[in-house]
């Protein structure tokens, strides 16, 4: 049952990720990615990570992608023109490269599966409990946690400085 749900959610994720890459309209891209991230959250629940699944829905699908939509509205970019720039050999080479990379990645993953230890330590249902995760964050990972909060503050200030209109100072080239 778990496996069936996981496979269905994974299939939906892959289909909508492909739609995201293939659509020329960036708004359609963002909307397909929202669906992909929702179904990825279902996968996370099945991998005993309900807290991460909630974070995925709130932060990724809720905040980051809405930010993308806002920027798209702000910039008002239309659909991509189907123009041919560069040689067709470039497209061909990139396709060949991606196929080779996929083969390499999958073979590496297969190897790592056969060599991974099979110990399922601890109760799986305790694994992703928010309380247990909080003990990790405020225990051994306290420094990292605080560093991330400083990083988010820095990103906030950086985004503000970058996106602000330069009206009061000299343009610096």
């Amino acid at each position, binding site marked *: 049952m*778990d*496996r069936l749900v*996981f496979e269905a959610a*994974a299939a939906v*994720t*892959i289909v909508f*990720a*492909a739609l*995201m*890459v293939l659509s020329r309209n*960036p708004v359609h*891209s*963002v909307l397909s*990615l929202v669906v*992909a*991230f929702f179904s*990825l959250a279902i*996968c996370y629940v*099945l*991998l*005993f*990570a309900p807290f*991460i699944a909630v*974070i*995925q829905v709130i*932060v*990724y699908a809720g*905040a980051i992608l809405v*930010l*993308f939509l806002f*920027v798209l509205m702000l*910039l008002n*970019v239309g659909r*991509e023109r189907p123009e041919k720039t560069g040689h067709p050999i470039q497209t061909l080479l990139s396709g060949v*490269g991606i196929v080779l*990379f996929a083969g390499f*990645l*999958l073979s590496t993953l297969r190897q790592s599966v056969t060599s*991974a*230890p099979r*110990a*399922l*330590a*601890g109760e*799986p249902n305790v*694994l*992703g409990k928010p309380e*247990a*995760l909080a003990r990790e*964050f405020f225990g051994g*990972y306290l420094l*990292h946690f605080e560093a*991330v909060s400083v*990083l988010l503050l820095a*990103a*906030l200030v*950086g*985004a503000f400085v*970058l*996106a602000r209109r330069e009206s009061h100072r000299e343009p610096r080239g």
Partner: protein
Amino acid sequence: MIGTIPLAEVLIVSGALFCIGLCGALLRRNAIQIFLSIELMMNSANLALLGYGASLGTREGQVVVFFVIAIAAAEAAVGLAIFVALFRHTETIDVNRINLLKW
């Protein structure tokens, strides 16, 4: 095995998502779509981390994924601010037309 889900399946889904994201990052010309593809690649890495974490019965995978999501949020904010500034400068976010640093 994670419950009844084999680890190999999780990893194959993760690898497929990564390749789709790589395709998008290489083939799209709209900077925002490239950025979305990079987000997708990050999510595929998260899926692999959670799969391994669940398979090994440790919580470290989820901790790392939490940090990855936080950093992705910071990256999205700064990246989109850069696009807004760039659009103000050049009136386009087509990466073929943005060649300020190219000579």
